[in-house]
């Protein structure tokens, strides 16, 4: 944090401010009272919208808590996005976009990219534009505002980019009729949810082939795709064992282990710091990804990098399951070379204000530590990611 911030003093002030806020926000992970939503201004400098979604979708464990969290999140978009969008965006359309986006987003099973594309589709629907060019400009604005609303969400950015790219190419195609082109775009956008759902299935198909009887899989973080893969493998009567890291502070591992226990898959919970200790028993590491970047590396929940490092050091394969709409044209050079997604951390005890807390929620895993990526485009080596992106954007 220090070396990135313009001024240390500023950091310090923020820190204090942060601490005050944290005491409230720390409740999010444990109790998530509805009042939280008001406290958290979006875009809050301290807690990213990205994190909120995660907290809502992948957060802790028990079903009643989940219901509670869902309720909380359900209220959330109603309350604050309207404020935030009116504050942070002064372009013409965005009000609707972000609103729409958040409406989509509250569905726990819906990926963020899907929500973004849906939101953009509604921009098209309500658009007054008469030419493709105008529509494109309008969409661009809308997507920019979406992106700037939450700069930390990679799949949001990637989803917007992907859709814009598609729109651009569609216009190049010259549907004679502008309206039919518009309709087509909307239709495809609405199908996107389905596409993303199908993508998960494809990935599960591909991924489960790599699970062999008697293997031990280490999973970090809660990823719907990874769960799908494991589910599929379990349904195919593969006998395997899963090690779940706890995934502090979100405790995503607890959630995953619950899900797996429901499937009768043997699960063992590890604290996050036990990764290296347990690695020698592990046959492969499975992780999801928030985003797959140009280099073929991934951005994922905090701790992925260290697990990948350990796995690489011990010659264990690291498999990433990620839908292709998470491919983003980013190229981080190191850990701090990306917009940090911040989150509150509950240490259980009050932290003195002088003590700084690293609140970043995710890290970057360079491609050399990844073995293969399972995507709906097929099984890719990290080097193939860039190939796909180049083909899409050049």
């Amino acid at each position, binding site marked *: 944090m220090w070396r990135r911030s313009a001024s240390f003093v500023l950091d310090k002030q923020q820190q204090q401010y942060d601490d005050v806020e944290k005491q409230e926000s720390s409740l999010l992970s444990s109790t998530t009272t509805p009042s939280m939503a008001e406290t958290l201004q979006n875009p809050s400098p301290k807690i990213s919208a990205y994190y909120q979604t995660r907290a809502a979708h992948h957060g802790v464990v028990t079903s009643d808590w989940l219901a509670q969290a869902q309720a909380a999140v359900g209220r959330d978009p109603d309350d604050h996005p309207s404020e935030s969008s009116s504050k942070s965006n002064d372009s013409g359309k965005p009000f609707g976009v972000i609103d729409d986006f958040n409406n989509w987003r509250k569905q726990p099973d819906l990926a963020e990219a899907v929500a973004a594309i849906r939101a953009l589709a509604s921009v098209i629907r309500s658009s007054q534009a008469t030419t493709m060019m105008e529509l494109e400009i309008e969409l661009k604005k809308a997507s920019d505002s979406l992106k700037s609303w939450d700069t930390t969400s990679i799949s949001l950015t990637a989803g917007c980019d992907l859709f814009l790219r*598609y729109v651009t*190419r569609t216009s190049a195609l010259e549907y004679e009729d502008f309206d039919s082109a518009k309709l087509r775009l909307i239709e495809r956008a609405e199908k996107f949810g389905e596409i993303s759902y199908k993508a998960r299935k494809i990935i599960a198909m591909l991924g489960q082939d790599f699970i062999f009887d008697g293997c031990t899989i280490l999973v970090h973080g809660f990823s719907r795709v990874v769960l799908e893969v494991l589910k599929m493998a379990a349904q195919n009567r593969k006998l395997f064992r899963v090690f779940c890291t706890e995934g502090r502070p979100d405790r995503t591992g607890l959630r995953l282990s619950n899900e797996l226990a429901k499937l009768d898959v043997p699960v063992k919970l590890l604290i996050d710091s036990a990764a290296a200790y347990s690695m020698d028993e592990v046959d492969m590491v499975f992780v999801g990804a928030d985003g797959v970047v140009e280099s073929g590396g991934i951005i994922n929940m905090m701790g992925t990098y260290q697990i990948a490092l350990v796995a690489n050091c011990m010659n264990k394969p690291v498999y990433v399951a990620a839908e292709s709409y998470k*491919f983003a044209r980013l190229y981080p050079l190191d850990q701090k070379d990306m917009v940090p997604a911040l989150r509150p951390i509950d240490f259980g005890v009050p932290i003195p204000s002088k003590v700084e807390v690293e609140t970043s929620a995710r890290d970057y895993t360079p491609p050399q530590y990844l073995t293969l990526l399972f995507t709906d485009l097929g099984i890719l*080596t990290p080097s193939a990611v860039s190939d796909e992106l180049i*083909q899409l954007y050049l």
Partner: protein
Amino acid sequence: MPDVHSLVNEFTIKLKKRKIEGSKTTAKQTAELLRSVISQQRIPHTNQAAALIDAVKAVGEQLIAANPVELAVGNIVRRVLHIIREEDLSLATAAIGGLSLSAASDDEDDAEQDDHPVLSAAAVAAAARSTLRPPSLQTLLEDVPYSAAVPHNSSSGGDSEGKSKSADKSSRSRKLKHNVIEAVNELISDIATCHEQIAEQAVEHIHQNEVILTLGSSRTVMEFLCAAKEKKRSFRVFVAEGAPRYQGHVLAKELVARGLQTTVITDSAVFAMISRVNMVIVGAHAVMANGGVIAPVGLNMVALAAQRHSVPFVVLAGIHKLCPLYPHNPEVLLNELKSPSELLDFGEFSDCMDFGSGSGSPLLHVVNPAFDYVPPKLVSLFITDTGGHNPSYMYRLITDYYSADDMVVQRRPAF
């Protein structure tokens, strides 16, 4: 038809009995067999490609099951399937091109672009194309029947000679088969000449006074080294014997006959000698999609030693060895255990190899695997008949030579 059947059966038996050795021979014979299958296949008037594909697939599955470890069989089956799809597509697009008059075809894919005016044959073409091209980000939002333009698709598969075919609808039925057989012939000749193609590149990689290490024997490696020698390069070769087959002796003899300075070392001396070696050149059994190599046993050891001393580890492999599968647990699943008699004298140890002492399992096991898996990070370079490639680029070559559909379909029998 019975003729083909007996041919197939004969070949299957040969594969099962491991009578055919070497991926090149296997590949060639598979291709020849498939050619005769295709030529004898009766073709219906509609959906000819599908009929051919079904026929080839049926035979292919049988062959793959006969020896799942010989990946060259599966590779060739997939290549032939790919050829059929491709030829079918090029015929279809050519037909459409003739009708829709937009014949700006400097690339196969331009022809694809033209297929959106939905014409009778376009559906076939679209279906074919969707299998030819792996899914990509660009097509993520599209779906097949409506397929929008794809101007930047670089996955123009293999040879695009088909594009110039004139679209004479009446002759299409014969033409497809004819074209396919033609293309398969080309494939066969490609396999036959892959050694020369690879060997031609030898001088680019071997410099004067180089010290090269190899293990066992591979025809490709031998030709490669000899080609460099013929171009007046003088260099020396360390040949590790390659237990348990000791093909290194054969290679050494051959190299010496061609006037190369050759030193035979034991396999165990590889680590000792590798520090004085400039380059390791070896052959492969199969190259996997992730750039990993299924290689004669012992090569993983050599590759590790080479990595330790930063010695380039170069794998020579004809394109027919390129396998579109991603290996998982290949050491076990894609391996074959040979007879223990190659290692131990049965007479001496027979008593302890089969007496069921209490537990019923013999005290002594002899492990004699045929292959090693060399992970991609240990490979510095692949030299194929189409040039040199990084291991990380293998995925790309695969999309050039195989259709996405075929990989998935054949996957199960292969593993």
